[in-house]
């Protein structure tokens, strides 16, 4: 299952998007039980695409909370597709697709 949960709703031509991305967002400042630093590991880039067109992009620091939450809005309509993807500092990526309600 994707790490990304999306809620996208058409409100009079403006699509309200809320998404939650499951990710630890390690700051690199925390230590584990043995006192060793946990290496930083965080989502750096997020991108949203609707019907093949980029509608929103963002870049994160480690100061974005664990399991990052993002909300944004763009011109679109019910039935359109919406894909949200992220890439973290290790190069890992994930994405999820939904149909706008």
């Amino acid at each position: 299952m994707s790490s990304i949960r999306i809620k996208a709703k058409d409100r009079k031509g403006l699509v309200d998007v809320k998404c939650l991305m499951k990710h630890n967002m390690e700051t690199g400042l925390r230590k584990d039980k043995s006192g060793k630093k946990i290496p930083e590991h965080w989502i750096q880039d997020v991108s949203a695409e609707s019907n093949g067109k980029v509608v929103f992009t963002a870049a994160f620091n480690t100061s974005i909370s664990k399991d990052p939450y993002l909300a944004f809005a763009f011109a679109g309509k019910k039935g359109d597709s919406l894909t949200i993807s992220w890439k973290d500092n290790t190069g890992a990526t994930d994405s999820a697709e939904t149909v706008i309600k």
Partner: protein
Amino acid sequence: MDRRSVLKIAGAVSAATAAMFAVPRMAFAAYSDAIFKQKAGADALQNAYGANATTPSDQVKLKAPDIAENGAVVPVSVETDMDAESIAILITENPSPMAITADFPAGTKAMVKTRCRMGKTTQVTAVVKSGGKLYTASKEVKVTIGGCGG
């Protein structure tokens, strides 16, 4: 912004993981250490937007609590009616202040909401890039530690 190299990375990543995730080819916004590892907010802005002269504006609507319930998850939102290309949020007291940059292609509302970490009481600044200029709004968020919940 070097769009081509970004596309290249995205392409490579998508090729590598297509079998597992079927990630579609798409352009990622540009994370860069030059912006997000900067210790000084002004330098981070310079590297992100090519400018660091800012003008306070009441058209930049920054919403953040006066007192954070929990410094690990502080809801912050920024919105403006200006025609804006990008919004950034800076958290002054964090080791590197730039927390997020969000870019808006035409047709996307100049608005972003997220949740941030704040290690201690800090100034939070929203920066809106509009017409090549930077407009800001700031407020202090108190972070308290200790107590039954803290």
